[in-house]
């Protein structure tokens, strides 16, 4: 009884697969339960956090998995938001179609910016993307006729379908919540698929050692532009939902501050992890709320900064890293050994040696 914890299970075993299979249903149950557990305004807050989480999922593909710092993601978020807002209020498009066009525009914009970014890295890349982030609000102000300029663009809505569950003010909030959930789930799945495939391995290889990856046959230009495109597209999709959620767009909502919030969210949640951005989206929405309740006016900003510093030091790997550390106290998953190259799996003579090797290292 003394050492029941941590529970050691090996990768691919029945226990491991059962544990993994429990995760998706648990998430679905949580998602369905939330509207019943929270009041309408709290649900609105959760929706907002989900939208931010979606944008962070996009940013994480580029900056987390790809290791390329972007200081311009607010621009893609804003481009998506303004596309939806302008098309639905000014030209009578329906909302889903405007989301699609917003994503297309953002993918194209992202790939265009990916081109100069090909040769740049570190601080240089950060500044190029910063350029994009700074120019976007200026462009919005400049093309006032289309975007409403500094005064803002009003009345963006996504009316709920005619189902009793979504009726009334409370129902409308539930509707937007599900839209945000759907968009987050879609974006999350896209990134998950990308990272599990060939491109995903190429992205990580380019991050870890660019020259070596190219020598191994990774097509840098293709992978980088595609990464930029997908990342920007997801941010744009999040922006579209943001537009219908808040209803009012001003250029200042998409200034540098938003990009910085997204970056904070990515790092605090856990960069280059799949669930990190989701935690990050909630953190970046709720921490400022808590700090502004704790301190009035500018003091809230000081508190927020202090919280960020503390979290960087306490959880250097982000929330996901911290949770993994806690989980290891209870369950340890031992990776399955890959088959040794050049050696046939079953050998009569070599058998004893290979079993010996297998049992050497547990934990």
């Amino acid at each position, binding site marked *: 009884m003394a050492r029941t914890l941590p529970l050691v299970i090996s990768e691919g075993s029945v226990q491991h697969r059962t544990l993994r299979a429990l995760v998706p249903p648990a998430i679905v149950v949580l998602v369905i339960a939330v509207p019943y557990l929270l009041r309408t305004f709290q649900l609105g807050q959760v929706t907002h956090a989900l939208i931010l989480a979606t944008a962070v999922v996009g940013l994480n593909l580029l900056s987390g998995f790809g290791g390329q710092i972007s200081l311009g993601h607010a621009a893609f978020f804003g481009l998506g938001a303004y596309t939806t807002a302008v098309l639905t209020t000014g030209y009578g498009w329906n909302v889903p179609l405007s989301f699609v066009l917003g994503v297309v525009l953002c993918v194209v914009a992202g790939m265009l910016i990916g081109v100069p970014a090909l040769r740049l890295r570190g601080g240089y890349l950060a500044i190029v993307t910063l350029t994009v982030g700074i120019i976007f609000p200026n462009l919005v102000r400049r093309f006032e006729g289309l975007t409403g300029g500094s005064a803002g663009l009003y009345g963006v809505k996504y009316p709920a379908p005619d189902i009793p569950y979504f009726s009334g003010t409370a129902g409308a909030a539930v509707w937007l919540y599900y839209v945000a959930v759907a968009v987050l789930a879609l974006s999350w799945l896209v990134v998950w698929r990308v990272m599990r495939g060939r491109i995903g391995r190429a992205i990580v290889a380019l991050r870890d050692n660019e020259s070596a990856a190219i020598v191994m046959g990774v097509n840098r230009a293709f992978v980088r532009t595609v990464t930029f495109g997908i990342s920007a597209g997801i941010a744009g999709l999040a922006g579209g939902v943001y537009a219908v959620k808040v209803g009012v767009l001003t250029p200042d909502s998409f200034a540098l501050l938003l990009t910085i919030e997204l970056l904070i969210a990515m790092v605090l949640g856990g960069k280059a992890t799949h669930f990190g951005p989701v935690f990050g989206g909630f953190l970046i929405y709720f921490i400022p709320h808590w700090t502004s309740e704790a301190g009035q006016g500018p003091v809230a900003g000081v508190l927020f900064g202090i919280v960020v510093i503390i979290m*960087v030091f306490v959880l250097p790997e982000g929330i996901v890293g911290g949770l993994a550390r806690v989980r290891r106290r209870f369950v340890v998953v031992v990776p399955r050994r890959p088959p040794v190259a050049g050696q046939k799996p079953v050998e009569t003579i070599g058998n004893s040696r290979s079993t010996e090797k297998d049992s050497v290292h547990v934990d």
Partner: protein
Amino acid sequence: MDLLLARVIEGVNNGAIYGFLALALVCVYRGTSHLNLAQGEMAMFCGFLAFSLNQAGLPVVAAIAVTVLAGALGGVLVERTLIRPLGEHAEYSVLLIAVALFLILNAGAGTIWGGDPLPFPSVLPSDPEDYLPVFGARLRYQPLLLLAALLTVLGLLYALFRFTKIGLAMRTAASNPEAARLLGIRVSRINALGWMLAAGIGALVAPLVAPSTTLTTSMMFNFLIYACAAAILGGLDSPGGAVLAGLSIGVVENLLAGYVPWVGSDLKQGVALVVLLVVLMVRPAGLFGTKRVERV
């Protein structure tokens, strides 16, 4: 002609501010490859500090001198307590620390000194009739002082890097930290020195700029963006490049805004940055930056 000259002069005045902050950015970047996004706020905070010292009865020049020392000390303190403990390959953590510092200093200054802009006394006379007439344009004293200070600091930095032992150590540490460490150079101290220089430079800029912008918590924000652009354009590890790039960005931006009506004031920032993009397409390491050679 007069107008052209006036616009160039105004461009140089702004460019000197960009170049000054860019110089500070370069001091940090050379050592650790960190872009210190809190640089502007560190400078701004020092500006307020100088204001308080001046209010307490110190003459302006003395107040600025004390502030520069305090700023340099603050820079070392930040490096030692917040940056160094994170280790070497913690780019994102350092980025977050810089952002957090940004917030703390910005909001902190707002808490201590209030949100209203404060007037800051200028070092040299700057009444409307105090200027040097040059071909009908007006050279004002305070911006001239800023430019002179910028060139002096650049000269001192150059001398430091070029002629002193510690400067040699700094260059070694910047070009190859591993080898520098093997040679017995305390690289972490060199990095702290970089932060010290940067913070000190920032503490000098803010009080010199403040008379024209007034002291506000947001006074440095736009300047910092231009300074980033200038540091990049010059090449992130070249002090001279940063200053030159800062001055050119100031002039180009002002001329574009003045002579191309389509640009106007809304897009003047954007156009300056697009020029930067174009330059980086051709020269990815900036105009005077060192290209990194990589081995696999």
